[in-house]
């Protein structure tokens, strides 16, 4: 890893999942620009407080870690109303221009996930101009008290914009209260913060290793891209940051001038409701019949055990899980990371350990899409087609996203789906269409690349409630065993989209240019 990035120019949420850096609470606020000139002044004022990716620490020339962080991003409409020149605006990608709502057919946001069912702020977005969402501001804080401080600061800034920007209300909170903001926080267990979401899974383990963003070379194992010789290398910076060379050896398509795009990226903001009662009931029902029991079945849904994220390819049953747990407990930070992240599916090509419809195998098939059937093998087997592609990870490397975000709400009654609980996920990528949308459409809501027809990813798939389009998944078994595969039938919709949009996260330089109105595509 030789590349050095200008961390002072890159916004902090690009580099850091804040939840893992001592910021367990956050608030997402959305604004509408009512006046271009005053709006730009507001952006300029906020920019002075925006948190960068710079390394924190004590000592000379070091930047102290802030009590709370500020980051900012814009929709296409927002950039338009901040009066960027048309010649710059047309350089943004078409899906960013269209926005998440208009991409519902691609994303499979149908039925209970359709935009009519979204929170009011997202339902009303892009309907009438005055309700359009323009600016995203995220505040992450060490404590709830500090979060309130940051919010009071932001309210003051909005006030001082003199009508330049207006706060948009319309996030549904507890008991469907309409809130001015989206609060998120880590899930607590026995008074301690966890990395879990509301279904009980440890989340956020497999963030990609990126050239220039990932400091520790050990971190690249299982997280970067696998090379033809089996070694691992970090993914090209340009997969996640505009203005840098990507995996195709070119600068990602981006708006002009280059300073507007460089060190910026696209962000997908998605609020996902979790149907905890339906999940529990479905898991309990099938857990009664599933050989290996309920917790193993829960692990089969995702590819990792719920309690600590142990990957099924390393811990496919309770006995190996016990051994894995002992290793994990004894390991240092680096060892833990390798245990949890350093693997492919090459030793599990038939899906006997981690099924092909498991969440983790679908969103990141790692270097294991290079597979085929061999008529000489036992029926039900698939195998690696060694050397078929130029590198084993060829079909996966350009489909990765950086995942940020935290759960929202509390599960107060696990017997009900309709509480205020879910996750806000923010995914960063240089090409929304090639990365996020592709994974969502082809790998989550469809299965052909996994030789699974229309079978969807178990957890996030947009499973239909209509019997005529019932969703199922096959939990594969060892082709050399005497077991039958297990069929998960009539999978209910476990996760529903409640809103979101596509944002552009500019660099600090670009923020200053936008604020001063000097964006010049010439």
């Amino acid at each position: 890893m030789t590349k050095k990035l200008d961390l002072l120019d890159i916004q902090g949420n690009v580099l850091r999942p804040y939840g893992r850096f001592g910021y367990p609470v956050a608030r997402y606020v959305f604004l509408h620009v009512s006046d271009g000139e005053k709006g730009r002044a507001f952006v300029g004022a906020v920019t002075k407080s925006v948190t960068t990716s710079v390394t924190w620490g004590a000592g000379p020339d070091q930047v102290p870690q802030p009590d709370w962080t500020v980051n900012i991003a814009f929709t296409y409409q927002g950039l338009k109303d901040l009066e960027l020149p048309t010649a710059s605006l047309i350089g943004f990608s078409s899906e960013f221009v269209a926005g998440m709502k208009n991409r519902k057919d691609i994303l499979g946001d149908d039925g209970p996930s359709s935009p009519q069912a979204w929170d009011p702020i997202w339902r009303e977005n892009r309907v009438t101009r005055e309700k359009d969402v323009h600016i995203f501001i995220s505040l992450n804080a060490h404590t709830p008290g500090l979060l309130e401080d940051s919010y009071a600061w932001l309210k003051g800034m909005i006030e001082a914009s003199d009508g330049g920007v207006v706060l948009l209300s319309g996030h549904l909170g507890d008991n469907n209260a309409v809130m001015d903001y989206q609060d998120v926080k880590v899930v607590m267990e026995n008074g301690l913060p966890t990395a879990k979401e509301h279904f009980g899974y440890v989340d956020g383990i497999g963030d990609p290793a990126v050239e220039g963003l990932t400091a520790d070379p050990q971190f690249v194992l299982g997280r970067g891209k696998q090379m033809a010789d089996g070694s691992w290398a970090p993914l090209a910076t340009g997969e996640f940051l505009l203005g840098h060379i990507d995996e195709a050896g070119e600068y990602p398509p981006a708006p002009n001038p280059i300073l507007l795009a460089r060190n910026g990226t696209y962000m997908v903001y998605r609020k996902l409701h979790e149907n905890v009662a339906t999940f529990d009931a479905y898991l309990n029902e099938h857990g009664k019949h599933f050989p290996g029991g309920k917790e193993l079945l829960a692990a089969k849904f995702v590819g990792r055990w719920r309690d600590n994220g142990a990957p099924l390819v390393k811990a496919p049953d309770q006995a190996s899980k016990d051994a894995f747990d002992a290793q994990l407990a004894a390991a240092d930070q680096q060892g833990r990371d390798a245990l949890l992240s350093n693997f492919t599916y090459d030793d599990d090509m038939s899906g006997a350990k981690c099924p092909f419809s498991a969440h983790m195998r679908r969103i990141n098939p790692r270097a294991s899409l290079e597979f085929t059937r061999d008529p000489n093998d036992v029926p039900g087997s698939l195998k690696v087609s060694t050397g078929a592609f130029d590198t084993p990870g060829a079909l996966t490397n350009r489909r990765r996203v950086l995942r940020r975000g935290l759960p929202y709400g509390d599960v107060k009654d696990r017997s009900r789906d309709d509480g205020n609980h879910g996750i806000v996920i923010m995914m960063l990528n240089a090409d929304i269409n090639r990365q996020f949308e592709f994974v969502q459409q082809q790998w989550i809501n469809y299965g052909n690349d996994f030789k699974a027809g229309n079978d969807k990813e178990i957890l996030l798939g947009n499973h239909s409630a209509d019997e005529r389009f019932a969703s199922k998944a096959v939990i594969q078994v060892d082709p050399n065993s005497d077991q039958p595969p297990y069929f998960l039938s009539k999978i209910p919709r476990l996760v529903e989209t409640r809103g979101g949009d596509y944002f552009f996260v500019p660099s600090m330089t670009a923020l200053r240019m936008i604020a001063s109105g000097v964006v010049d595509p010439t």
Partner: protein
Amino acid sequence: MSNVAGKSYAMNVITPVRSHLAWVNKVIFWTALKLPSTLKGLITLSLIHYARWVIIGKHQFPHLAPEQPKEALSYSYMLFFSNFNGSWDQYVDSFTFAIPSGLDMFWKWNIRYPKSVALTPFHKYIQYNQIETLHYYNGYPLATSNDVKSAKTVKDALIAFDQTAHEGTDATFLKRYHTLLRGLQHDLGDMYPTPIVSMSAYQVERRTRWHASQLQANPLKRGQQ
């Protein structure tokens, strides 16, 4: 007119190649067919039904009637024809991600071929030289090539299973039934309409109409709701 029928996409790309170099392409095609290992990547990309490359000499274009004006062509042409599942992007990208050197080998002598990596110039090259499909029929609009292969596997396995289904005890039947299922564990994917691969209004409407007609043709039975 549409490039898309059901889950399939038909792509025609015709690119000029210098006539005195066209024989090199023919030798490469011939060699590739003789050495199947060179096509391993192509075959492993299971979204592809097939792909075919043909050289058309500059005097080989059809002249259908005396009144058809004769064209004076400067080049020979390479016709690339493929049917695949998924979107244009997914297909072209899979090619360049997985087998860029193979692509470059086939197209190397074509005029202004930019190489398959970087991606944007390659996308443009294909777009500029693609001929839209005028008529496209698909006998199995819900099926991908993987689905067709799986259906054949399932059918053959079921027929074989049925030959001896009546023999043996209940216990051996169950054991054999489990073996059947295990052997078919990668062949039992659902077949429903395709994810949207083209945002053309025609494709979006046609998909919606298909869905509606399915619902009408298969009303819910009593008790299913």
